[in-house]
């Protein structure tokens, strides 16, 4: 997972202690709003990395009354692991999508109008995108390009969602006319004649709204 590799990368820059690592990570990903990491998560990850021999721990004697802190540094196997990560592509994330599920439920249950569901979601996404656009434009490209890039990514994903919604909205009638996918009951009994299953939902069009 990328926190692991991000920590390895930050340690490749220079040895750091735990608190410093967390701050640096947050700076890279664009602030705690963008990616909130708990300190415990950092330390757990560092422990695992140490166990795997990818980092090594030194003790830094605190000056005066300061307690001694643990300082981490990258090992050679750690550097190798980092390069292995660089060399490989990152898998695209096909995550569970709550909105998609909500839309499907609305369709089969008949409890809510799917057009309404889409419009509500769309308004929400536009507001979010407007906020992100405003935020992005408030950054100075001369010193905050990392933040701008991250926001751009988010904006573009929102854009993709909105476009997908436009397409979906136009196809709602078509979905309504199709048989709804029934659960496939595998272990017991043979499939009934004529039940060829369904290709629905279309693959590859979902993503998390996280």
């Amino acid at each position: 997972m990328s926190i692991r590799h991000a920590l390895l990368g930050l340690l490749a820059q220079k040895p750091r202690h735990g608190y410093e690592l967390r701050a640096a990570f947050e700076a890279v990903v664009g602030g705690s709003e963008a990616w909130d990491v708990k300190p415990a998560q950092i330390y757990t990850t560092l422990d695992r990395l140490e166990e795997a021999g990818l980092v090594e721990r030194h003790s830094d004697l605190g000056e005066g009354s300061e307690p001694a802190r643990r300082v981490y540094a990258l090992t050679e196997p750690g550097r190798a692991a980092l390069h292995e990560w660089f060399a490989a592509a990152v898998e695209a994330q096909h995550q569970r999508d709550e909105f998609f599920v909500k839309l499907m439920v609305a369709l089969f249950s008949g409890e809510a109008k799917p057009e309404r569901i889409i419009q509500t979601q769309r308004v929400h996404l536009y507001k979010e995108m407007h906020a992100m656009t405003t935020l992005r434009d408030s950054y100075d490209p001369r010193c905050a390009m990392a933040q701008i890039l991250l926001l751009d990514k988010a904006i573009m994903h929102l854009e993709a969602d909105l476009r997908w919604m436009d397409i979906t909205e136009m196809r709602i009638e078509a979905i309504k006319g199709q048989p709804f996918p029934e659960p496939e009951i595998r272990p017991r009994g043979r499939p009934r004649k004529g039940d060829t299953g369904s290709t629905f939902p279309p693959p590859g069009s979902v993503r998390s709204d996280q």
Partner: protein
Amino acid sequence: MTIITTSQLTKIYGSGPTAVTALDRVSLSVEPGEFVAIMGPSGCGKSTLLHLIGGLDKASGGSIAVDGHNLNDLGDDELTELRRRKMGFVFQFYNLIPVMTAAENAALPVTLDGVRPAEAQKKAAEWLERFGLGERLNHRPDQLSGGQQQRVAIARALVAEPQLILADEPTGNLDTTSSDEIAGLLRQVSKEYGRAVVMVTHDPRIAAYADRIIFLKDGKVVEETILEKKSKTH
């Protein structure tokens, strides 16, 4: 005080069985300094709405008022004058005159209004400098990139100091980076210079710059979304 008010605005093309209702009883209003995006699928009537607001086309029914003038009551010459003084246009294809320089193009509306060309071009140059084109005043359109041409077009829309800017797919012909620049510029026009901007677009990313989005479908307003409360402080 609103700058645009439409009431039951209707536009029907053709007649008899082949008649197409492009706009169906649209009522809306736009306030000074507001940045409004009109969205909707192709054929939803968004361009028709913009053309009616701009007085480029005549309504079939309902009323439309721009800055207190009821457009239905105006003749061609009066409409022309209203356009010249109260509105600025930004088109998808920039529509710059190929034989004129950037400054001359941007100065056109005031030149057409009878201002001396030197004075008009000085005014145009001020806008062009604000938009980062100070170095390109004497370039011809074919010597400018698409984004630069569109910035000239926005300067042209602003040079007569109109209170209303109408933009028809202003980024339709531009790449992503230039599109963002132009959309940001339009927002700046609204926020910094206090002009009302009405923009037709089908690009969600561009629409997100607006304060308010009006969704049209089949000639009707299906939703109005306020993205940002208009603040008086800007």
